């Protein structure tokens, strides 16, 4: 007997629903993005996002069932992101998931969003065993995590200020090249000279696995300000390439340190910034030179989606760690909070 889990994800600006079979096979993964709406505000507006989720949630769920050629009666469990994220946005998915579980008398599984990003790596052909390391890079997170088992996580390092995706967005805004910043900078960086500017790398200290990006962000903004004052021409691709190089140097070097320190030669990359081509190339090279394995989720599973949530729910299905109908959105839910909640 196979297991069909319906996943629901509404933690930020994508409304998504997916059906995943046995924790590994994606039958459908429908994503309704609000990016065009939030672009006009230069970032995600929580109240606007929550309103759109209310409009989108049922059509997206229905579409995921139709695309999987199943009906709600075939679904074995419903899994939903309950944190971290925008609380108003999370609440919409949580309310919908609870009602489906209640109406159809099926188990409800609460999933932590970052665990979802990590689990996106299980939806590929490649199989790898625990323990492994996860480099989580997104608009809200920059973390190195040791994954002992799929329900056991330890933080090795995390950002002390801005998340990496946030730094990309802020720098993109200051150069005036649109929103979201990550993909635009990645594309421009390919045509620029990464050594045109010498932006700082925040190592904190040798071997330290924490991150800091706010100094880099300020350095970029200051450099641009100076050039503008002097009336100099700014070559945008050079700025993008130099900024991206500074970010990637740090991400890659700290990943190498994490492999060295733990002796675990397997790294999975997770989160929206995992789509960055520069990061993919450099980590791949570093993996070859330092003999560790690195894997990336397919591009379609890097940004927020519900298939990764259904995948992360599967170990909980197997161990019957179900949520109750009082499940609530938790804006700051960490991997560790989640583990603790699940094991009670």
């Amino acid at each position, binding site marked *: 007997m196979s297991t069909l889990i319906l996943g629901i994800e509404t933690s930020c600006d994508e409304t998504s629903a997916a059906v995943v079979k046995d924790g590994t096979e994606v039958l459908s993964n429908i994503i309704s993005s609000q990016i065009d709406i939030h672009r*006009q*505000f230069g970032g995600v*507006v929580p*109240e*606007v996002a*929550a*309103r759109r989720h*209310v*409009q989108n*949630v*049922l*059509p997206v769920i*229905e579409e995921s069932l139709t695309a999987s050629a199943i009906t*709600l009666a075939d679904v074995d469990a419903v899994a939903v992101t309950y944190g971290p994220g925008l*609380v*108003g946005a999370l*609440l*919409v998915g*949580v*309310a*919908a998931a*609870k*009602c*489906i579980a*209640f*109406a*159809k*008398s099926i188990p409800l599984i609460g999933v932590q969003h970052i665990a979802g990003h990590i689990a996106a790596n299980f939806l590929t052909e490649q199989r790898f065993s625990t323990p492994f390391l996860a480099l989580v890079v997104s608009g809200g997170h920059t973390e190195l995590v040791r994954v002992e088992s799929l329900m056991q996580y330890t933080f090795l390092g995390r950002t002390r200020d801005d998340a990496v995706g946030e730094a990309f967005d802020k720098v993109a805004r200051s150069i005036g090249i649109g929103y979201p910043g990550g993909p635009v900078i990645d594309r421009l960086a390919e045509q620029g000279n990464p050594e045109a500017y010498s932006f700082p790398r925040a190592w904190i200290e040798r071997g330290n696995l924490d991150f800091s990006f706010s100094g880099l962000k300020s350095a970029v903004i200051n450099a641009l300000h100076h050039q503008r004052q002097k009336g100099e021409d700014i070559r945008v691709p050079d700025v993008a390439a130099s900024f991206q190089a500074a970010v990637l140097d740090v991400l890659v070097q700290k990943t190498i340190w994490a492999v060295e320190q733990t002796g675990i030669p397997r790294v999975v990359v997770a989160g929206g910034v995992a789509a960055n081509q520069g990061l993919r190339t450099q980590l791949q090279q570093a993996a070859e030179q330092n003999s560790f394995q690195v894997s990336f989720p397919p591009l379609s599973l890097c940004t927020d989606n519900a298939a990764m949530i259904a995948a992360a729910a599967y170990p909980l299905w197997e161990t019957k760690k179900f949520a*109750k*109908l*009082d*499940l*609530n*959105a938790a804006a700051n839910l960490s991997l560790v909070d989640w583990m603790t909640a699940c094991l009670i």
Partner: protein
Amino acid sequence: MPYLAIDTSNYALSVAIGDDQSCLGEASTFVDRNHSNKLMPLIESFLAQLEISPADLTGIIVGKGPGSYTGVRIGVTAAKTLAWALKIPLTGVSSLLAMAYTAAWPGFITCPLIDARRRQVYGCAVDTWQQASPIGHQPMIKEAIWPLDIFLSEENLLDRKLVFVGNGAQLHRETIQDSIGERARFASSLSTGFARALHLLQVGSEQIKQGLTEDPYQFEPEYLQQAEAEAKLTKNLEARESD
């Protein structure tokens, strides 16, 4: 053939079960907290109490707002998901109208007011006593977000006796009394001023019977206001166009 009625749009968390003939029960709390984690456990235990299973339900009625943005979203999302999953009809009723029904006094016009900050209220005025059938209820003052002083000087209300309910009425009691004096009364019984699911049931069951139902895909809360960021954007666009 029981319907389930739900309201979470303001401080009340209220559910009721019944149809157009009778109400089997109502469960409410009047504390403004945690509707998100309290709603479904309340529905679950309440249905169990009445020995009704979710599959027995034949319609969902929901207070569609106005009220707290988060509150209306919780109720409306729950209601439309239940209706969709159970394949049963869905209908929405104004949460202000439900509040008005808690104070239907002969000779008085009921004014339910919800505080909307900056001396504004979500409000309307309805003749709840005269109107026997709630269907097609035409409010004397339409539901909107009102600056309080404009609401109080509406022509339709001049020379009428008014009874005010809701947290907007409590908050602005002195202003209202100073403005219209003896014509204003305040319903102070413990059971007034909340959107009670019992009253939603009364209106909503009639609507379902008459086929006035909603498509769960399309159905949205009645916020009565644009999100702040959207309102600003609209304003900026208008300003640019008029330049």
